[in-house]
């Protein structure tokens, strides 16, 4: 028992730009990536992959490989069929969904080029690769479904046994669910004296391209089987290993050590993990598989890949009355863990920040003989945001208004929150006026518009364009009951434990699984504030199912808004749990105690005691009240009551050389409203990185297949990731409308930049050359595509890349 010191109140950690705890090991090369781990007797695996997009396997000769020096064993799909389990889709979007069985190692047929067909296990990685060259596989090549639109017509079947390429049909209809009028009515009204805009946009196929190639080690020695994997989802992986391979969950430990980026690309249970699992169990020795970059690009799932058919209805004054969306979404050869759920996540986002009377979203995920497609940063929401933000610019042109003004005319006003949208989501808070005003001021909007006019009037060879994206998104996946209604296979809660160690240190365990986000820092700030302990005394443990036994991992901008709230609940439980003990030691009544700045004090006296002292007293357990257990640790599971709805205004100025089609980014400004900010430094990093991934979709990246279904952008030579020399520095700022549905008032930020940036850039480029007859350029907007659009537009004909009115009987407009 000590008297209260005149210590100054600890400065709140939340809101401080703390330097990251993670960095020390990362900047000194003392990191534990999966591929850095080596175990005694560990064997190495190489995978033989299909060169064909679609073929029947007619023979596999493993003899030569098996006889090679230092080869331990060789496997094909038939040998592992009974033990390798299957890869599942956790979100069947309809009960009737049709998805092919996905064996980790192909058994009798391959459905995409790059699919694993055989494996070789050797004493060294080099020997495994050498021997893999000796595997002789005979194929009977089958016709492949490659083009998304043709695949949707079932011209060629990706999986003949299914009888169709269509996985499902999923619809959200505002009239049907009672959240708005019938879409056909408002389109009919608009055709009669209003404005109807019909467009077809292409969301090209992207590759997440995390910097750390995936790696997995399975150690079957000992009582438990341990898997180390470069994954975003150790908990989900553990559950699905148990569910599909028959090993009791309690015998499985999955560890995601330091993980080098994911962006949704490591939100997957992979063939490589499952094969390594089966092979290690078969052999009884630890086995490692680390992919090459080329393998990663062809085998790790891709993202986006949609055709979007859009009909926007508006009054002649420019008030939008409704939008009809028809999506074709390429799933690739297999339906991944989220699968058709990815485009469906866009269903609530096409209406964005706007107030409409009617809305209909129709989505058909389609199988093709290409690499599978699943979550990539934003997952469904960038695609939706792109479509609506492009259309708002088109509407502004039709009406003859400034594109910011047309948005303001249609968006939800700040005093209208909470607002239930035409899609049926209730946005808790936001202030689009404030974010836009700030962004405009930072950007120098009026001056740039004036310069644009001057250069246009002058006929400058290099034209200036201004692109706008006033985005919102739904993130923080997710309220479990909502997921249940959507047939998702799991909940959306998150778990946390707070352990008060006798030395005064605090061990915090989270079910979120960071891979670059800085949880160790931001979560320490939250707990330090809540418990009133020093930031340095908090240790965040994560990513190991043996330490963090319960969790739903990291994706969908959920770690802070869901996982952070679990921390708050657990910390609050510790405070409550320790209170009777503190009262006992202070010889006071529980009712007279108050807690603040890490201390219990007896109201009206100078008596008090720090929570660390209570922790030590709990450890000793020499003196504690009857009826209480000697422990003050606590755990908690938080289930969010709503999604989180960050928003922001992104403004991009781009210059287009009308003679060469070269695009130069001149300025990029954004003002995001992500509610209360825990660590502004970490937030800035998330925003910058997100913006560049969004810009990269607009300007550089595309997964390209040739006519035989080979990924020709299958290395970093061909898949164009931006470099430091391609990009610019950004100006970012924030407005703050705290979330009203969680205690910290936070909203997600991980995906915001990526969601917002793509339409801002495309709108800027189109704005620069619209007066030359261009109203669309297919992404990525290469100089060649811009130049071609300019040639077509200059002659007053439809541009080659333009997506013109579609719905009935017109041809592929690519």
């Amino acid at each position, binding site marked *: 028992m000590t008297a209260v010191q005149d210590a100054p109140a600890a400065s709140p950690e939340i809101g401080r730009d703390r330097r990251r705890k993670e960095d020390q090991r990362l900047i000194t090369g003392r*990191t534990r990536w999966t591929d850095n781990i080596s175990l005694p007797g560990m064997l190495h695996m190489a995978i033989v992959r299909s060169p064909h997009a679609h073929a029947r396997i007619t023979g596999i000769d493993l003899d030569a490989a098996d006889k090679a020096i230092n080869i331990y064993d060789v496997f094909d799909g038939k040998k592992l069929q009974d033990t390798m389990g299957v890869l599942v889709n956790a979100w069947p979007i309809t009960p009737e969904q049709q998805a092919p069985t996905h064996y980790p190692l192909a058994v009798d047929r391959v459905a995409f080029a790059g699919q694993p067909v055989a494996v070789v296990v050797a004493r060294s990685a080099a020997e495994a690769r050498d021997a893999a060259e000796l595997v002789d596989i005979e194929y009977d090549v089958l016709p492949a479904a490659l083009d998304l639109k043709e695949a949707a017509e079932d011209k060629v079947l990706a999986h003949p046994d299914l009888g169709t390429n269509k996985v499902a049909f999923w619809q959200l209809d505002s009239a049907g669910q009672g959240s708005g009028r019938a879409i056909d009515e408002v389109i009919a009204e608009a055709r009669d004296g209003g404005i109807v805009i019909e467009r077809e946009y292409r969301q090209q196929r992207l590759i997440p391209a995390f910097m*750390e190639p995936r790696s997995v080690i399975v150690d079957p020695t000992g009582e438990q089987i341990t898997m180390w994997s470069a994954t975003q989802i150790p908990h989900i992986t553990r559950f699905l290993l148990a569910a599909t391979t028959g090993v009791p969950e309690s015998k499985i430990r999955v560890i995601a050590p330091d993980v080098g980026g994911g962006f949704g690309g490591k939100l997957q249970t992979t063939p490589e993990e499952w094969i390594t699992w089966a092979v290690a169990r078969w052999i009884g020795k630890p086995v490692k598989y680390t992919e090459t970059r080329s393998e990663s690009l062809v085998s790790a799932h891709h993202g986006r890949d949609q055709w979007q058919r859009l009909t926007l209805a508006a009054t002649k004054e420019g008030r939008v009355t409704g939008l009809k969306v028809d999506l074709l979404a390429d799933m690739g050869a297999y339906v991944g863990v989220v699968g058709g759920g990815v485009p469906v996540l866009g269903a609530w986002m096409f209406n964005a920040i706007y107030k409409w009377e009617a809305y209909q979203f129709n989505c058909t995920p389609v199988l093709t003989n290409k690499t599978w497609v699943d979550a990539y940063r934003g997952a469904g929401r960038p695609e939706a945001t792109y479509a609506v933000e492009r259309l708002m610019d088109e509407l502004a042109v039709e009406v003859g208004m400034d594109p910011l003004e047309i948005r303001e005319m249609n968006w939800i006003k700040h005093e209208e929150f909470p607002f239930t949208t035409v899609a049926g989501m209730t946005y808790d808070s936001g202030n689009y006026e404030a974010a836009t005003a700030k962004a405009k001021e930072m950007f120098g909007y009026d001056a740039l518009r004036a310069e644009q006019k001057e250069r246009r009037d002058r006929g400058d060879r290099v034209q200036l364009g201004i692109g706008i994206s006033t985005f919102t998104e739904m993130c923080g996946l997710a309220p479990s009951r909502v997921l249940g209604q959507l047939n998702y296979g799991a909940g959306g809660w998150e778990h946390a434990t707070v352990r008060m160690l006798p030395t005064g240190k605090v061990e915090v365990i989270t079910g979120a699984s960071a891979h670059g986000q800085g949880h160790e820092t931001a979560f320490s700030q939250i707990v330090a504030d809540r418990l009133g302990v020093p930031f340095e005394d908090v240790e965040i443990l994560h990513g190991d199912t043996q330490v963090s036994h319960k969790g739903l991992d990291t994706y969908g901008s959920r770690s802070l808004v869901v996982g952070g709230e679990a921390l708050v609940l657990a910390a609050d439980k510790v405070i409550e749990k320790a209170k009777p003990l503190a009262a006992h030691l202070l010889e006071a009544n529980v009712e007279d105690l108050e807690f603040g700045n890490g201390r219990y004090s007896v109201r009206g006296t100078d008596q008090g005691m720090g929570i660390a002292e209570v922790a030590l007293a709990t450890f000793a357990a020499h003196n504690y009240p009857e009826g209480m257990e000697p422990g003050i640790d606590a755990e908690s599971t938080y289930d969010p009551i709503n999604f989180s709805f960050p928003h922001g205004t992104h403004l991009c100025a781009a210059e287009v050389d009308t003679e060469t089609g070269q695009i130069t980014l001149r300025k990029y400004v954004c003002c995001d409203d992500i509610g209360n900010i825990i660590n502004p430094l970490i937030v800035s*990093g998330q925003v910058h990185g997100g913006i560049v991934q969004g810009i990269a979709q607009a300007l550089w990246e595309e997964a390209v297949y040739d006519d035989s279904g080979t990924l020709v952008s299958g290395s*970093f030579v061909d898949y164009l990731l931006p470099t*430091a020399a391609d990009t610019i520095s*950004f100006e970012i700022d924030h407005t703050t409308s705290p979330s009203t549905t969680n205690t910290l008032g936070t909203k997600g930020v991980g995906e915001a930049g990526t969601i917002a940036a793509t339409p801002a850039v495309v709108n800027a480029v189109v704005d620069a050359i619209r007066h030359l007859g261009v109203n669309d350029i297919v992404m990525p907007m290469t100089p060649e595509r811009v130049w071609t659009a300019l040639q077509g537009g200059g002659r007053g004909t439809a541009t080659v890349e333009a997506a013109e009115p579609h719905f009935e009987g017109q041809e592929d407009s690519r």
Partner: protein
Amino acid sequence: MTRINLRVDQENVSDDVEPRMLLVQYLREKLGKTGTVIGCDTSNCGACTVHLNGRSVKSCNVLAVQADGAVIDTIERLADDDGTLHPVQVAFRECHGLQCGFCTPGMIMQAVDLLNENPSPTEHEVRVGLEGNLCRCTGYHNIVKSVLYAAELMQGASKEGANA
């Protein structure tokens, strides 16, 4: 197998290696220098950047046998023996120049070389100087800021040194 002798992170080492073994494989597999990582197979990403005789190289682009007799420095010995960080390391932490950290060892080693060659680069010079190193997390904004800040730190240190 070929015998090579070289000095890595201030230690003399010697091994028999296959002629095809890459320097990065030698560092990681033979010496356990896992601070240096492999991010691609086409010499595009720069994650494996180390210093060979004081200049940055992509260690996936050098055979171990080519490094025979060379002095190699990796991220693992960039800080002083007493743990004092190199100014570039300090700057990356200070300016949040890393997120997942996978590209960071290569990025830092490249930045050190860049600043050795050009102690006060412009933003443009930094961007061009880092062109061979890919990062997927940061959008490069804070990496560029880190290198410019490191230049300031190093200039400050050299001025102090001159005044002393």
